[in-house]
Structure formats: C-alpha cells, structure tokens
C-alpha cells in the first residue's frame, strides 16, 4: 500500500464485490503487503425498458413517484434476436442495492413491458464496466475515506499463470457426516496447524472457534457440510452462549442464505442444499460445491476468474450458470441488451425438416470384441470448437445475409462473416483450455503447476461441455434451439469427414461416438504413426483433433440382453503407458458397491500386464486367483461395511414410488420412519441384508451386524461385474462360473465363443483355426 496526501494506491487482488446500503458497492481487497482493506465505490446501475410510447410514458410517470434517486433517458440499444437497435428507456439507479427491488415493483406493475439488463449479477456489471473480475490483480487509487477513485485491472481472465493471491484459508470439518450421525469433534486446519476441537462442552468449543476466526482472520472458510449444518450450528451456539462469532468481516451484516433447490439437468434430478454466503470473507462448502471432486479450490478460483461470478457463487452454481454469466458479460461489452425473459420462440418449420435435421450426435456402433493396434482420436472440445469455427449463435443462425451459408442437413442458413455473441464468448475459453492441455502434456509429473492446470482444465471442461446444451436450454438468455441443432448437424458432418479421411488412409474405423473415433491399422504403434491422420482430419474439418492414446488392447462390449448387439461407449482398454480407460462398465457407475468396483479395477490392473490382446489369456490363472480371493473376502463379511454400500440417487419422493418394496423405497422408508427425510436428487445409501425388507439404510442409528449382509446378492453383482471383463475373452456367464469354481478349464469353453472373439485369439488358447 502506498499512502499519499490525498489517499492511497493499492496493488493486489479483489476478493469480493457486493452492494451496500448507501455507498454503492463494497470491495474487499487483498493488498500485496497482506493488508485486507474494505473500500467503497459509487456504482449506479442502468436497466432498460421497451414498449410502445404510451406505456413508456406511464412507466416514466411511475418512476417519477419513486422515493429513490434515479434518472431516465431515451436511447437506442441492440436487441440480439431482432439483430437491430431498438428504442428503449434507460433507467439509471444511483444506489446499486435499490435496483432489484425497483425492478421487481415495475415488472409487477407493467408486466407487458419488456425489460432488459434488469437482473444482472453485480459482479458481471462491475467486470463489464471496470474489467475487474474475482481475484483480478489490479491497481486501486482510493481517497482518505477509502472510496475508490480509480481501479485498473493488471491481468485478464485469460492468463494461464495469474499472480497468486496469498489467501488465508481455514478448513473446518466435522468428524462425521451430520446426516449419518451426530458429529463429536471438528477437525481444524490452517497453514501448518491441525487440530481437533470437541463439540462438547459447547461453550469452550464456540469460544475456541471465535478466537481462531479473530486471530487468524481467514479469507476463506473451507468447510464440510458448512452450508447444510456447520454454520447454522455455530450460529446457534454463538447465540446460546452469547459469544460473538466473527463469521463476516463486513460490519453489520449477517450471513446470507439461499434455499435448497431441486431441478432437472441432463435427465437427472439434482439436489442442491441450502447455501450460506458470508460478506468480506468467503465460505465454500466442499460438500455442496459443484464438482468439487473434479476441480477443487483451484478450479473454483478459475471459474470465478473466467465467469466473473463471485467465488462463493461460482463454487456452487452449475456450469450452465457460468456460461450464462460469461454470455451476459460479452453482451454488456458489445452493448447488446440482456433480456429478462427470452420471448424469441422457434421459427415455424416443417416436420420433414425436423425429421431429417434433429438428430443429435452421430454414433457408429462398435465392432464387438478385443482389438489391438487401436488409436483413439478425439476432436478437442468438439461442440465448442464447432460453435466457434462455424460462428454458431442465436443471431447468426437463420441469417438472411447474402453471404449466409447453408447448414448441412438442416436447410437453415448461417452468417459466418460477423462474429456472433456465443462464439465470441467461447473463443478465449477454448483457447485457454487448449493451452492448459498442451501444458499438461508437456510438464513433468512433479511440477506443481501440472496439478493446478489439470484442475483449471477440468473446470473449463464442464463450462465447455455445458455451452452446447445451454444453446437449447429454455431459460438461456441467448439460447436458440435452431443454433443447438446447427451444432449437432455440423458435428455429424465433421465426424463423417474424419471417418472418410481415416478410411482413405487405410484405417479401419471400429467405433465412432459423437466426437471420437477408434481406428485400427495393424503395425501402427507410435504417436508418430498417427500424425498423418490427425493432420488430415484437422485440415479437412478445420477443427483441432488429438490422439487420446494408443491402446495395447481394447474390448468393446455387447449388450447384456443380446450378445450380438453392440453398445456404444461401453468398453475398457489399456493404453500403451499402462493407463486404464473404462466407459459404461460397473466400476464407472456410482451405484456399484466399492467391493465390486474395486474388484473390477484390480482385475483391470492385472490385465495391464498384457502387452497385446493375444497375451490376455495367459493372465487367466492370476485373474481367477484374484477373483476367488476377492469373492471370499466379500462372502466372509470381513471387508469394512462401507465397501458393501450401495448408493443411489433419488429421482422421486417416497410417496411417488409405485413399488414400495424396491431397495431404494425400502431404505427411504426406514429413514423417514426415524425422521430423516431425503429429497429427490439426494443420495440414499444402503446395504443388502437377509430377510425383509432386504436392505438396511446406512444412515439409520445404531450398530449394524455384518452377519445380516446378504452376501449371495453381492455374489451375483460380483459375478456380473467379473463377466463384463472376461466376456471379451470368450466366457459365457455360466462358463465363467464353471471356470471360476473349478468345474471346467478355460480350454474347455464352448468353441463358438472363440469364433466370436476372433480368429487371432485362438492360438493364444492353444486352439487351431480349423477346430
């Protein structure tokens, strides 16, 4: 901090921006010298209204009656869907905090008026006006009253290595999940300190917590179950024992709560618990954060930087909300109106065009069986790349411009000459993700940056995955179903182009799945061997493509019901570096008990010893021994009970289950009987038990006797999972049991199964082609 006569100049990071009653906005700023400063800044906000002149006059009359400081003026702004400037009434409110309430009143009084820029998150407005985003490194000049005179960002959201803020992080974790049982102590970690504080007696406990908050003064409170239990528990104790608890830094503010939410996303019911936000300090609950396991705190920071959403929000909101925020910021930069409610509906089209055009991603069924010399090549972030490359956006699709091109299969046009809002939003994000991926490939494992890059790339991945779906999402401000369809239409076209290239170069295409191809050409073993196909595909499509890896062997699995029917995206294999890749098998499913998925992964690990498909049968004796050992442990009931847990996500309430005897409904009923109710989207955990109702809900109180475990049921699951892995080697379901329990030897398996596996495997089993 540099003090001057008129005030101070700061270099550092903006942690949080929020509204205040009379001073515009508050900025909590982490100065380079470690000072935490509270600054304020006047920040009037503007929103717009469009209607016929008479209604706008009535609106102005209403505004004149408002007891707050505001001004209005007529202006022209661009409506993206009309793709032209329209006359609007601008309403500028002096105090930021008063705008939402004013807008709410106006929208109720004038429901026929179209409002724009009316419900934009403050941090996005702030970023659009100042260029400053969460954790931005910047220079601030403030006067003696700590009122910001100027603020200048010194980095952008697109830096790979922004200057890291020296944040103080306090971690608080109850010893058990409060839903499961009553916690008894709190694990506390900050810097090099680690300790456990008993929750009883209450008074010394809360004094301890208050003291740590006071003395360490953390920037981030990182909790487990903080949103749904811990913070409320601490506040309750603080009130009960009259011990002030400085959860916030901001004076005079309580905690902000946002209610729990249940919603549908990609066909799944999602439950988000209550949220607790702080002021001047950030609270992030690992258990309620979105995809915490995927990208952690580094990913949350990255999301805050690129989406512009406050960190407490970016940790918890869906990637779709992140994309929406980015699009709004782009719109504000471009001077495009952000509609409150999108009214643009689909243009009428014939059912015939829907029949041929609305197809989704292209899938080319896999060739069932074990294969060697296979390379997997993937378009890098295919759909976002398609959006950027073909300039797909709400305003570009259906363009009547003379330069517009025809979209394949859809019969619609697209303007590729003027960059659209959605591609403009995605382009820097896509570039940054590709840069991260390049760095990840080149950096050695020991480099600490590699881990951070992986987290950031993972955060980007979810934003980019969502951006395509968001184009068709009903509440997307700049979404349009035709643009959504255009993405898949181009995607199909690009995949077919890639297939043509592969076949022209002599590859056999074994499988295609939306954005990836599995190609085989005997003799090709190195990355260099695959360069020509990558180059040619990229040249032909204009999209980036990469080699995901070369498989030592890969097995594409058939349907469970009919072994002649292939199933897309259900396979397992081992890359040349020994990395296992699995899709669609039990170990990938979150409802598989750990003892089953653990077995699958152990067997797969053993199978990595095979350098080619031909060597796999040689491992069968070891696989058999391993399976018998694992099965014996399960049947003896000696594994920790957690290994037997089945976890299922609820899609409905107990009352909505038509069959009350299903395991899920029975476990739910057990919990409901003791007053623990779960909502759709939450997960219920249970064990399979002997007798009725056949399950024991994990979150029931009391001890569970392992002798009650229904090991026969686990055995069925076990054998099914083992069969998944061994089926490509020619086992039938009954044959597997015979072999496993010593009834037959592998060479005695029915010969037709070997024919199905492939002639090249017969010698490995000691059999001749002529058999």
């Amino acid at each position, binding site marked *: 901090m540099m003090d001057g006569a008129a005030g101070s100049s700061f270099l550092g990071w903006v942690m949080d921006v929020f509204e205040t009653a009379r001073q515009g906005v508050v900025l909590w700023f982490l100065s380079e010298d470690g000072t935490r400063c509270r600054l304020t800044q006047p920040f009037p906000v503007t929103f717009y209204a469009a209607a016929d002149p008479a209604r706008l006059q009535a609106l102005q009359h209403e505004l004149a009656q408002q007891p707050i400081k505001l001004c209005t003026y007529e202006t022209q702004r661009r409506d993206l869907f009309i793709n032209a400037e329209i006359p609007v009434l601008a309403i500028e409110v002096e105090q930021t905090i008063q705008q939402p309430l004013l807008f709410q009143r106006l929208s109720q009084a004038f429901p026929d008026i179209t409002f724009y820029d009316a419900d934009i998150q403050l941090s996005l407005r702030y970023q659009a006006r100042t260029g400053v985003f969460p954790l931005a490194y910047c220079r601030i000049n403030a006067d003696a009253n700590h009122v910001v005179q100027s603020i200048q960002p010194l980095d952008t959201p697109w830096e790979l290595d922004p200057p890291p803020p020296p944040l103080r992080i306090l971690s608080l974790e109850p010893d058990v999940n409060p839903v499961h049982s009553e916690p008894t102590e709190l694990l506390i970690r900050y810097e090099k300190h680690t300790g456990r504080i008993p929750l009883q007696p209450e008074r010394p406990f809360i004094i301890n917590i208050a003291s740590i908050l006071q003395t360490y003064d953390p920037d981030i409170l990182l909790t487990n179950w903080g949103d749904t239990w811990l913070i409320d528990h601490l506040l309750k104790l603080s009130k009960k024992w009259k011990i002030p608890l400085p959860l916030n830094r901001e004076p005079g503010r309580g905690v902000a709560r946002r209610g729990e939410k249940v919603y549908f996303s990609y066909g799944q019911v999602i439950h988000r618990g209550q949220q607790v936000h702080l002021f001047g300090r950030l609270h992030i609950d690992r258990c309620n954060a979105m995809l915490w396991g995927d990208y952690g705190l580094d990913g949350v920071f990255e999301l805050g930087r690129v989406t512009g959403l406050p960190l407490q929000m970016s940790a918890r909101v869906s990637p779709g909300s992140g994309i929406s925020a980015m699009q709004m910021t782009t719109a504000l930069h471009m001077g495009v109106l952000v509609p409150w409610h999108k*009214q643009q509906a689909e243009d009428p089209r014939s059912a*015939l065009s829907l*029949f041929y055009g609305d197809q989704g991603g292209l899938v080319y069924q896999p060739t069932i069986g074990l294969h060697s010399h296979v390379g997997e090549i993937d378009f890098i972030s295919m759909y976002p790349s398609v959006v950027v490359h073909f300039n797909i956006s709400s305003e570009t699709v259906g363009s009547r411009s003379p330069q517009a091109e025809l979209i394949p299969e859809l019969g619609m046009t697209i303007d590729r000459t003027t960059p659209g809002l959605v591609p403009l939003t995605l382009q820097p994000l896509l570039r940054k993700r590709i840069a991260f991926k390049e760095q990840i490939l080149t950096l050695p494992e020991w480099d600490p940056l590699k881990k951070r890059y992986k987290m950031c790339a993972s955060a980007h991945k979810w934003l980019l995955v969502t951006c395509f779906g968001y184009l068709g999402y*009903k509440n997307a401000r700049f979404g349009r179903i035709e643009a959504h369809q255009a993405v898949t239409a181009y995607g199909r076209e690009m995949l077919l182009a890639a297939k043509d290239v592969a076949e022209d170069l002599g590859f056999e295409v074994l499988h295609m799945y939306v954005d990836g191809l599995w190609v085989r050409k005997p003799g090709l073993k190195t990355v260099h061997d695959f360069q020509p196909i990558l180059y040619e595909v990229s040249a032909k499509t204009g999209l980036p493509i990469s080699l995901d890896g070369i498989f030592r062997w890969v097995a594409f699995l058939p349907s469970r019901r009919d072994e002649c029917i292939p199933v897309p995206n259900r396979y397992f294999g081992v890359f040349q570096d020994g990395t296992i890749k699995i899709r669609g098998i039990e170990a990938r499913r979150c409802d598989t008990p750990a003892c089953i998925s653990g077995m699958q992964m152990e067997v797969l690990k053993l199978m990595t010893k095979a350098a080619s498909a031909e060597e796999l049968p040689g491992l069968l004796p070891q696989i058999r021994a391993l399976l018998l050992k694992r099965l014996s442990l399960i049947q003896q009931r000696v594994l920790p009970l957690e290994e037997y847990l089945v976890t299922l996500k609820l899609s409905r309430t107990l009352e909505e289950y038509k069959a009350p005897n299903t395991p899920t409904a029975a476990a739910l009923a057990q919990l409901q009987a003791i007053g623990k109710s779960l909502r759709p989207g939450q997960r219920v955990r249970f064990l399979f038990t002997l007798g009725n109702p056949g399950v024991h809900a994990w979150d029931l109180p009391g001890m569970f006797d392992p002798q009650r475990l229904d090991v026969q049921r686990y055995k069925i699951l076990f054998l099914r999972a083992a069969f998944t892995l061994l089926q490509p080697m020619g086992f039938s379901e009954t044959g597997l049991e015979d072999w496993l329990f010593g009834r037959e030897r592998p060479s005695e398996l029915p010969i037709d199964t070997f024919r199905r596996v492939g002639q090249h495997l017969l010698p490995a089993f000691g059999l001749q082609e002529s058999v």
Partner: protein
Amino acid sequence: MMNAIANSPGDTLELASGQILAILAPHAGRSLMLETAARFALRGPVRVLDGSNHFNAYIVARSIRRFTADIDSALARISLARAFTCYQMEALLAAAALLVQHQPAPAPATLIFDLLATFYDENVHLVERQRLLLLCQRYFRAISAHSPLLISLRPASADRPDQQTLLDEMLAFADDIWQAEAPAAPAIPRLF
C-alpha cells in the same frame, strides 16, 4: 362439457372452425395428438405448436406410413414450432393468431401440444402465468375463428394448486373438453 375418448381422436373428433376443443389426458395425450397430427397431415396442412417438445417426427412418420408411402409430402404439410417457456408459448400464439387472419381459407388446422407444460413452471409467478394464459386465450379465439383448433392439456399435480388453477381456467375456457378414458381392466376369468 366433458366427453370421453378411447382411442384416436382422428377417428372420433370432428374439428370445426369457431370451436375450441381441448383434450385432457395424462402426458397431455401425447400419442393421441401425434396420431391426430398424422391424420390431419394426410388431408392437408396442419400447424403444430408444441409446449413440451412432445412432437416426435418418427412416430408421426410411422403413423403416416400406414396410409401412404409418400411420408415426406405429409410431413412437409406439418408446420411445427416449439415453445420452451410460457413467454415463448404466448409469442408463438400471438404470431399464429396474426398469421391465420391473413391466410387464405381454409386455414390449416391448429394443434397445440401440451399447452400448459410451460405454464406449470413454478419459477414464473402465478399471476404472471395467468396474465399470459389470458392473452393466449384471446389468441385461441382469433385462431379458432379461421381454423379448427385442438388443445391438449395435462392434469395438474396433486400437490400443486397453482397448476390446478391454470388447468381450471383452461377447462372453463374450452368449448368442448374430451378426457381420455383409463384403459379398461382386463376381465378376470371366473371359474363359475
């Protein structure tokens, strides 16, 4: 007036201009409406406004195929637009009401699939949904003056009084209502 339909409305319902006919059925009578669209498309142009992305061109094509090999011509006679929010449904109906007035007679039959699906969205205030539904009802009158109009509705959830309010408003508004009959229970063979 509440009537009952058993199978295809194309077989039993006669649509005429000037009358607003509603079908109340689970899933908004999806299969009935698709079959109806197919039957109408065999005869002439049809306008489908879809409130819940229920329109499945494959099913319609299959229905058409039972009567003609020229599936493409029949499908081309169906004009389709989908609404994903109640605001979009209102906008679609406003556009359709305007269009129908300028179309040469006879105007194509109009089928509204699952009208209330978007209106059952609790994220929009009930008062606002009622305002929009009232506007839609004006458009229905305008459309039905020139074109046969069939609207499909889904029952309200038992625990959602807001949905029941909206449904009641539509049932009170429609000139004629047909309700799908539950399939008859199979007769149990008796010994005596």
